């Protein structure tokens, strides 16, 4: 059995080709944005490739159709698992492979028994009638795996694709999952295994393909490969460091303005850090490390289970963004559409929303003054189209939306500015100017904290980088230690002694 594909999806994935044999576990490694997800979305029929094809046992796979991939024997465990939370485990399993029926009626008992068997096969002892919502993240992963490994005589499994399946799993369940993957391969299934975690790759993969910036760098057998070599391959050689850093190497750090102690919230455990006025602090970490949750928990977007957040000595309660803002904190969420912009309101209204007091006179808002302020920010941040302050936010491009939302918070002159993925989905030009803004804001005394999956970005602007692993801050890099290679090594758990996968 052979599998070959060559796509030419612009930038996301360029002229990629790969062959996997039956019974092989093939790992795909790469940093965020290297094209791994694109690859999987192409295979599963989510995206249509611009060019190229996939062959399975000599037959051409119908790309761009999810059922086509299924019928040809491809099974997927997606990163977000793709389960329906409000349905039971039985129903989730049945949705893809069908239910046993008689006279067009689902035979519940058979379906349940079968689901129970499927679950036991992956080592889960759960009542199949449970709702997926009630399961722990690890159990959900198990259900998704059970679904992928389920036998379907009509379309026997030939290819199993797993996208970061261990992101939410504790160590001992990782072992179990890896054993199952191995067993599937031994049964003649071709496995494509995508992960950030090097040790897993070393444990189960026969071959590894490394992606960077959408380009396949190499495919080599795992045997005899050195861990450090692999990391260097993933992140690129040291010589490829990006442009000189914008920030001054050592912060003329003032007193700490933000102090977080003992913060726990969901997967976050006992996180403590501080940020001083004039300092840019980065938060790095792989998917599942809790990086993407930390700033939300600090600001009050998510509830905190315990811990305190102090701004200039004032305690900020959990889930009270208004109190945080009143005490000089600004927070730019990662998801523009969901959490950040009110797309149906105008740019002006978005800019002034967080604080309307300056525009108020005798209870009425002065639109003229709002417009003046919005216009000033449009010019300062060179938002395009120029002076379109009365257009709704949704009519702007992604980069300009982000500039408008930057303006919204910068206007408040916060003492602490928290940003999640500040330049995600933003083009290069806008990205550079947003970085410049952050640097000058810090120079004026703001404490800036950036959480980002973009290592280049962190290395570029941060004075200090905190590296998260499994819900905790595992390392801290400062001064010259802040580099693309340093951060990448840290997040992959290979910096200090490389032993970070202990439970």
């Amino acid at each position, binding site marked *: 059995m052979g599998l070959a594909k060559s796509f030419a999806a612009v930038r996301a994935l360029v002229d990629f080709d790969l062959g996997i044999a039956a019974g092989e576990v093939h790992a795909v490694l790469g940093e965020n944005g290297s094209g791994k997800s694109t690859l999987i979305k192409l295979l599963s029929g989510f995206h249509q490739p611009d060019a190229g094809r996939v062959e399975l046992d000599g037959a051409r796979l119908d790309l761009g159709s999810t059922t086509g991939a299924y019928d040809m024997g491809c099974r997927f465990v997606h990163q977000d698992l793709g389960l329906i939370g409000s349905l039971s485990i039985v129903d989730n399993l049945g949705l893809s492979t069908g239910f046993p029926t008689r006279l067009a009626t689902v035979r519940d008992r058979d379906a349940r028994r079968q689901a129970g068997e499927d679950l036991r096969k992956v080592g889960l002892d759960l009542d199949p009638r449970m709702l997926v919502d009630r399961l722990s993240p690890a159990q959900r992963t198990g259900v998704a795996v059970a679904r992928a490994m389920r036998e379907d005589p009509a379309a026997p499994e030939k290819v199993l694709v797993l996208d970061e399946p261990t992101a939410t799993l504790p160590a001992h369940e990782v072992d179990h999952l890896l054993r199952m993957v191995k067993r599937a391969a031994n049964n003649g299934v071709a496995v494509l295994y995508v992960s950030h975690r090097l040790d897993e790759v070393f444990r189960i993969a026969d071959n590894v393909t490394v992606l960077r910036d959408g380009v396949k760098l190499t495919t080599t057998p795992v045997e005899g490969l050195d861990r450090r070599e692999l990391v260097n391959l993933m992140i690129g050689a040291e010589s490829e460091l990006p442009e000189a850093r914008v920030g001054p190497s050592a912060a003329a750090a003032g007193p700490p303005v933000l102090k977080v102690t003992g913060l726990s919230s*969901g997967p976050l455990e006992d996180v403590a850090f501080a940020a001083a006025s004039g300092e840019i602090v980065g938060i790095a970490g792989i998917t599942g490390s809790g990086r993407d949750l930390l700033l939300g928990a600090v*600001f009050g*977007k*998510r509830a905190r289970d315990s811990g305190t957040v102090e701004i200039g000595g004032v305690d900020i309660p959990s889930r009270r*963004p*208004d109190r*945080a*803002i*009143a005490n000089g904190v600004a*927070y730019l*969420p990662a998801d523009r559409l*969901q*959490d*950040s*912009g*009110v*797309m*149906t*309101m*105008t740019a002006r*209204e978005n800019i*002034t*929303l*967080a*604080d*309307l007091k300056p525009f*108020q006179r005798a*209870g*009425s*808002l002065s639109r003229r003054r709002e417009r003046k302020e919005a216009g000033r920010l449009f010019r300062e941040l060179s938002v*395009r*189209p120029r002076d*379109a302050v*009365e*257009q*709704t936010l*949704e*009519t*702007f*491009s*992604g*980069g*300009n939306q982000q500039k408008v939302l930057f303006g*919204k918070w910068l206007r408040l002159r916060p003492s602490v500015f928290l940003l999640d993925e500040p330049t995600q*989905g933003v*083009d290069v*030009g*806008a990205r550079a100017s947003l970085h410049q803004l952050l640097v000058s804001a810090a120079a004026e005394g703001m404490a800036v904290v950036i959480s980002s999956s973009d290592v280049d970005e962190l290395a570029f602007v941060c004075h200090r980088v905190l590296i998260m692993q499994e819900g905790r801050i595992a390392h801290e890099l400062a001064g010259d230690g802040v580099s693309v290679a340093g951060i990448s090594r840290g997040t992959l758990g290979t910096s200090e002694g490389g032993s970070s996968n202990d439970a």
Partner: protein
Amino acid sequence: MTLDGGRLNFGFDRFSGLYLWALFIIVFGILKPSTFLTLDTAHSVASQQAISAMLGLALIVPLAAGVYDLSIGATANLAAVTAAWLQTNHGMPILPAIAISILAGVAIGIVNGFVTVVLGVNPFIATLGMATIVSAVQNIVSGQEQPLPPTAPFWSKLTQHQVFGFQIVVLYLVVLAVILWWVLDHTPAGRYLYAVGGNSDAARLSGVRTQRWVWLSLIASGGVSALAGVLFCSLSGPSLTFGPALLLPAFAAAFLGSTQLKPGRFNVWGTLLAVYILATGVRGMELLTSVSWLNDMFNGVALIAAVAFAVWRQDRVRHPRFGDAAPDDTAPGHGDPGSGEPSLAASPRTDPGASS
């Protein structure tokens, strides 16, 4: 409704209702000049629709915040019956009777808010249940018998007094509209309501106390609809069934209104415009054909057409944005301020609280 409206240009889109209204007046004016095109018709349509319009206005406050209030009709009815019952059966003077009736509406709003915000029940369900409960309470109060209308001469003068040929209730409507317009368009409260309705998560993360505004909006709709009910009672008597019948027209007006003047936003003047477009059409058709089902038919069609139109507009505005590869500094070709549609058009919003 405005099928050929949007495509031509922006002005025609936004003001399509005005054109339609003018069209109604001209067509019916030509067909029935002696009965339709009279001052009397204008006066009677204006005051007949005043209560509907007030309910429409009551409704746009929670709608602005993205929350349905299906209890406004029942609330108005309860207030009307209470006002009459307090005066006729308990000899209460007019002003305290009115005050108590309106407070009843405010109390209903408070409970609606509690169920929505604290218990986390979807407002659609919460207020639907509340509407039924309120009807039951009305039955308890009235004993299923229509109370006699109060006899004090001032009671009917309260709404029927003539000002420039119009009944004074029309003036109340204008005053109410101006107040709500000021609140929604010119105060932080209005801005917060629209922000909550536009994107509750983003509003909360901008420091807006979203739950408080949802709660307040339901209190406002309860109070205003009770006021409308009291005025209805003074105008037409304490009917036991008028309220629920006015619910759908209020929704039709609010949604049709949200496609007018400030498209994409529930707005005061658009709502009033919608009420009177529909009323003019109905009156004209009635004079022409003298059938009785027109009112319901018109309102039903208008509600669906308005929402369909809004959804279509929204698609038209949003679609180009998905091709996000568009170069950063080109102006989006579809220069259309006030675009997107309240999330309501497609689906009821869920509880503003719990997000993980």
